[in-house]
């Protein structure tokens, strides 16, 4: 019994925060939206950490990213673990491997995945109200000012891609300092941002993926889901992989 007693003050302290910081989270989101109101482009250094039920340590990648709000596009200039340029717009996911002189272009079945990312990088009041609910807000361990907001996608299709989304904001500067998501089958993606710079005008050259004429280009279609819900099946669709050279 005496072992339970020390826990009581902790419980009492926790009572005022019964909403899991949702009110603070909504206020921080509004502040972030206001801070990004005139933003057409964001650039930042990034570190991506991915964990799955199979990993013991995160898979780490780092480089620089550029986000353009309209038309929506994000480009990751990957430095580590291998040089690459990743470009995502509403219709394509492309990866340029310079050392192989190869472009891998995936034609997306819909815009759900890029829209989730774009809404996270450049939230607006309209898309937040349409796409997410604030589930939690917590202080990032080791930081006085960083807060991690957990958002739940409201759309059924979006929830098949991400069961939850996280945004990290700086409560002092109102800047976006990270984002991430959890995949429904397990797998956490967390991206930390540093040296974030906002611009009122986008540099469109950053968002063009110019590859040499003699590069190998592989085009693949990501298949659409064949059923609306997660039913099992015994045979899978095989999309064609077109190769151009």
């Amino acid at each position, binding site marked *: 019994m005496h072992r339970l007693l020390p826990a009581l003050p902790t419980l009492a302290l926790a009572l005022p925060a019964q909403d899991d910081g949702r009110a603070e989270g909504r206020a921080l989101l509004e502040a972030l939206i206001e801070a990004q109101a005139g933003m057409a482009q964001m650039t930042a250094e990034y570190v991506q950490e991915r964990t799955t039920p*199979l990993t013991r340590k995160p*898979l780490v990648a780092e480089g620089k990213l550029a986000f353009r709000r309209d038309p929506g596009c994000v480009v990751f200039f990957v430095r580590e673990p*291998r040089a*690459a340029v990743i470009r995502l717009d509403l219709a394509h*996911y492309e990866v340029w491997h310079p050392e192989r002189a190869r472009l*891998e272009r995936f034609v997306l079945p819909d815009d759900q995945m890029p829209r989730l990312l774009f809404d996270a990088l450049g939230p607006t009041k309209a898309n937040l109200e349409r796409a997410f609910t604030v589930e939690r807000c917590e202080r990032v361990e080791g930081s006085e000012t960083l807060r991690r907001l957990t958002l739940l996608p409201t759309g059924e299709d979006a929830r098949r891609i991400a069961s939850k989304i996280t945004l990290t904001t700086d409560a002092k500067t109102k800047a976006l300092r990270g984002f991430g998501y959890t995949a429904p089958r397990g797998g956490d993606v967390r991206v930390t941002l540093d040296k974030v710079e906002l611009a009122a005008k986008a540099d469109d050259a950053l968002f063009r993926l110019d590859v040499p004429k003699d590069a190998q280009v592989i085009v693949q279609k990501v*298949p659409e889901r064949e059923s609306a819900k*997660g039913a099992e*099946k015994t045979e899978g669709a095989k999309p064609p*992989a077109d190769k151009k050279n």
Partner: protein
Amino acid sequence: MRRVLLSFAPVAAAACSTALPESDLAALLPLGPGVAERFVLEVEIDSPGLTGTFDGVLVTRPDPPAVRFQLLPDLGAPILDVCATPEGVAGVMHGHGELQRWPAADKASAPELLLLFGITLLEQHAQVTRERVLAASAGTPVHLRLRGVYPGTTVEKAEVAGRSVRGRCYRYGAASWRDHLDSDVGTVEGPRFRLRARVIAREAAGDLADDVFHLDAAP
């Protein structure tokens, strides 16, 4: 006694090449890893369903045999996830795709890419024991014919190098393919696919929970 004789008969049948003496075979076996392991890989795939360069994570358990393998694109969560045991293979492609299952059965299933990946990885990371050896031929290298870990699979030729298998030729139903393993690079080649994996990190994984080797439909 009759069962013992039957198990020796295939080795004798390999005598068209020179059969490896039973004592030499006993000294050679078991082959392959005896511990659970975790791998981080750089994977290149060229196939009708998926082509590209990916990060790979693989966990293996030799006894009872089980493997699980995930492919991650440069950005985001896994887009391919496959789990294999002798009881069946389950897998999903393109992240949000539907879970496919191939329960082990007498009749071979259609050779889907995920199924072949599962069979190959399961074989590569299971031990070769005497019970699975159908024939053994002497020479350098020693060649074995094996009953596959996954029911219905035969390893028509396993090339033994030291205490491990360097390459295999597989047959499952009408499908045949092969693999080759060097120190830190492995390739798998079939009629419509090619996979090359380079080991970035490898470690013993005694901490793996059993549920890692189960793949369920998305919640």
